[in-house]
């Protein structure tokens, strides 16, 4: 299985090649892959249902606890089947939708890669493997949303989706690491089967918050929901697949997966119920607000995601049953509806529901599919959606906490949902025929197969819930989510109870709302200013804030004033050293002054030379002064037994002065550019540094307690190295490697200088005259002139 998943990435990568071989039929060929996987999963189902779970071990990075081991239990099986089956449908559908699109091959790369990632996500046993696939779904989703990349909206939306989900991903990483640390294992199977109760662990709260953040962003919970409608910039097959059936449910999957270990605490119940319910209501409410068919569906998806979260929050056995049922039902009808929306968009050239109508005669099959799916959506019997809604309302009514709130929210949401369902499925097909940008026809077969299959699924699973082992599968899934055996028996009829009544009432009210939609929408527009201040505005201002912060920081730190850079560096150094030597320890040194007059004079000349070089108003005065300092240093070297050094210093000093003089000729005189404040400030910094250095020298010199290694060098200079000048022996023998490096340094400096002086103004660059001969000619011409001193 792992191999199959990994092969999926290769398959994705080779899709351009497949396009060369199969042309337009590539989608069908590719669809065989998820179909095959689905079949394989289906074959595993009995065993999974029998044993509860199946572990397929495969190591990857054991030292980090990263494995490619797959954990196949009811939950992952349910998700896996949804992913592969809907994936196959979507691939076939996309082949029709994007027919003749030049970038179809690239689309396939991303889509197949996404499908594989998603599959990996739900199958992963390793915490980090889960994370890896999680991130991959974000990335592939980014590529898919930005498919129409020349459109700025698509780029922006893709970026937004990526940022929100990746931000959550980072929380996920932190959460998973904390989970791993707390549980002592990096394997989900082990964590789920361990005895230790993580709810008691000190890290529980931070861990949970991180994980919830991850789940909420990925599954578009309020207030992170705004990216999902924007993601509708993606081609419709993508919306159908990622943004309704699969990816957005990854967060839900995560919550469900961890529910047995982390769920049920007050924190969990509180956050999940409230956030879920709020999301549900907000999603449903916002859906009503839009006329773009895809946005309508997107908001209704948010509503569903909220519902699922809420159910996980409630956590009762009913809720678990409702959760798995609702999940399955939603994937089926919403997938179908999105594809229908795509057909409408594809055929009519518009996405605006108010601009469509009376299309049933020209596209009867589509209309039927839409009707079936919408009825399931609306929760009309005998479709699967009805069962789901029934169970949901039941759970809400049985909730331990926030019962009233949840019921109210659920009820309102149900009404709104029904209205949305009708708007999507009835409005375009019935009533007055509108003129659309394109002349509509029935969609091609490839675009009908997928939605038809899904709609059929909704219908059949509603009518005969046990068909294809539906009950068993959902039982297994619910068991996995609940953490204990939870029997699921689906039925269209649970008797007349409050849930049924609520359901029926909402149906009526929903239909009424559908009828009065246009006027309601008009009245809702007064809320627009409020909505503009929603979470999305927060996101925008955060993004702007980053840029402003960045600009501010650059002005503050990287402002181009080098003296500020130097100041910061020095103050850092001074502060650290000062703190260490003065505050944390105390400097200890003996002040033992044994000085001859001439030595003092020379040292004085040196110091005064340096001082005068800094205060001199004349550049060359400063240079001469530096020369004096250099000669004094040479003399110090002589007075303290270093003739080689003295000679080197003298020569270097002389040559430096010559270089300076050669260069200064071109430069202007000193001018006083600093303010006196700056001079005082710099003076203080400089003086502090000087005092510290002075103290350090004294300390270092005073505390010497080891035999220097040079004793050996002195002893062996003649016997082993055959040289009388020990310094030279060190340079060319003991430490010849230093000298080797040093001569290269000098050579490099020379190369640099020569290049700097002779290679200039683009001279000799390929853009000019081929190979730089012109520079040479110029110089040659000049050297012919008499030298002018």
């Amino acid at each position, binding site marked *: 299985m792992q191999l199959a998943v990994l092969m999926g990435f290769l398959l994705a990568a080779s899709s351009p090649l497949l396009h060369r071989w199969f042309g337009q039929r590539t989608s069908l060929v590719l669809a065989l892959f998820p179909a095959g996987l689905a079949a394989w999963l289906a074959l595993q189902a009995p065993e999974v249902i029998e044993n509860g779970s199946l572990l397929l071990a495969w190591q990857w990075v054991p030292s980090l606890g990263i494995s490619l081991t797959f954990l196949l239990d009811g939950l992952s099986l349910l998700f896996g089947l949804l992913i592969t089956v809907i994936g196959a449908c979507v691939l076939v559908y996309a082949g029709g939708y994007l027919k003749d699109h030049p970038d179809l091959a690239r689309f396939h790369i991303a889509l197949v890669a996404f499908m594989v990632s998603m599959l990996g996500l739900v199958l992963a046993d390793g915490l980090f493997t889960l994370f890896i696939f999680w991130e991959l779904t974000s990335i592939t989703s980014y590529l898919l949303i930005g498919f129409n990349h020349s459109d700025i909206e698509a780029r922006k939306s893709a970026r937004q989706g990526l940022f929100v989900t990746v931000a959550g991903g980072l929380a996920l990483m932190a959460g998973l690491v904390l989970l791993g640390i707390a549980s002592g294992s990096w394997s989900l199977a082990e964590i789920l089967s361990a005895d230790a109760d993580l709810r008691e662990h000190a890290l529980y709260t931070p861990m949970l918050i991180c994980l919830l953040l991850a789940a909420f962003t990925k599954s578009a919970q309020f207030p992170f929901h705004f990216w999902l409608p924007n993601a509708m910039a993606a081609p419709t097959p993508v919306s159908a697949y990622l943004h309704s059936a699969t990816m957005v449910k990854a967060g839900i999957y995560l919550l469900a997966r961890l529910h047995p270990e982390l769920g049920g605490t007050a924190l969990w119940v509180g956050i999940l119920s409230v956030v879920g319910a709020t999301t549900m209501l907000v999603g449903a409410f916002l859906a009503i607000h839009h006329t773009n068919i895809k946005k309508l569906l997107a908001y209704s998806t948010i509503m569903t995601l909220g519902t699922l979260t809420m159910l996980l929050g409630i956590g009762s056995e009913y809720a678990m049953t409702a959760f798995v049922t609702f999940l399955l039902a939603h994937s089926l009808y919403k997938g179908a509806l999105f594809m229908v929306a795509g057909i409408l968009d594809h055929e009519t050239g518009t996405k605006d529901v108010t601009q469509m109508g009376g299309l049933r005669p020209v596209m009867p099959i589509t209309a039927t599919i839409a009707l079936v799916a919408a009825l399931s959506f609306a929760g009309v019997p005998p479709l699967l959606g009805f069962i789901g809604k029934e169970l949901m309302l039941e759970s809400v009514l049985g909730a331990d906490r926030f019962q009233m709130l949840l019921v109210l929210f659920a009820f309102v949401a149900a009404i709104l949902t029904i209205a949305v369902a009708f708007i999507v499925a009835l409005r375009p097909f019935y009533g007055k025929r509108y003129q659309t940008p394109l002349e509509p026809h029935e969609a091609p077969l490839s675009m009908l197969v997928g939605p038809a299959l899904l709609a059929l699924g909704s219908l059949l699973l509603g009518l005969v819930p046990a068909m294809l082992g539906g009950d068993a599968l959902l039982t297994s899934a619910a068991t996995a989510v609940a953490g204990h055996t939870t029997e699921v028996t689906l039925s269209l009829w649970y008797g007349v109870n409050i849930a049924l009544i609520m359901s029926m009432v909402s149906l009526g009210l929903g239909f009424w709302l559908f009828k009065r939609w246009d006027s309601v929408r008009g009245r809702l527009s007064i809320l627009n200013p409020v909505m503009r201040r929603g979470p999305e505005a927060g996101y925008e201002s955060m993004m702007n804030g980053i840029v402003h912060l960045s600009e501010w920081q650059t002005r503050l730190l990287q402002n181009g004033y080098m003296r500020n850079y130097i100041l910061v560096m020095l103050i850092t150094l001074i502060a650290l050293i000062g703190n260490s030597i003065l505050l944390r320890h105390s400097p200890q040194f003996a002040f033992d002054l044994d000085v001859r007059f001439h030595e003092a004079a020379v040292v004085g000349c040196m110091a005064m030379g340096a001082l005068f070089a800094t205060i001199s108003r004349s550049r060359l005065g400063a240079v001469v002064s530096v020369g004096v300092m250099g000669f004094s240093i040479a003399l110090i070297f002589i007075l303290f037994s270093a003739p080689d050094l003295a000679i080197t210093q003298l020569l270097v000093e002389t040559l430096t*002065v010559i270089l300076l003089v050669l260069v200064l*000729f071109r430069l202007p005189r000193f001018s006083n550019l600093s303010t006196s404040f700056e001079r005082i400030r710099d003076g203080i910094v400089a003086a502090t540094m000087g005092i510290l250095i002075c103290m350090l020298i004294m300390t270092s010199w005073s505390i010497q307690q080891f035999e220097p290694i040079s004793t050996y060098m002195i002893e062996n200079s003649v016997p082993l190295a055959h040289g009388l000048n020990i310094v030279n022996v060190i340079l060319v023998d003991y430490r010849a490697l230093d000298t080797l490096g040093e001569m290269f340094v000098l050579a490099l400096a020379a190369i640099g200088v020569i290049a700097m002086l002779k290679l200039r103004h683009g001279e000799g660059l390929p853009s000019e005259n081929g190979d730089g001969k012109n520079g040479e000619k110029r110089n040659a011409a000049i050297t012919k002139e008499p030298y002018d001193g």
Partner: protein
Amino acid sequence: MDTVILIGQVIMSVALILAFVRVVRGPSLPDRVVALELFSTTVVGLVGVYAIKTGVASFLDAAIVIALMGFLAAIGFARFLERGGPRDD
């Protein structure tokens, strides 16, 4: 003898200091350069005396180098002046 050397060193040190004073006072570049020349020549003398004092003849090598190479700086400055560099700089 040591006293003599000490006196010699002191005198030459004073000479060094005086030369340095001229470097500081200038006023023009040639004045400073001449002072630098004198400074380096005095260093040669000091090195000679120091060699005598310590008995280390190797120090004289440094003196040779100054005697042979020390005037290059002055030539550099002269070139600067002759090419039109400001002399009161």
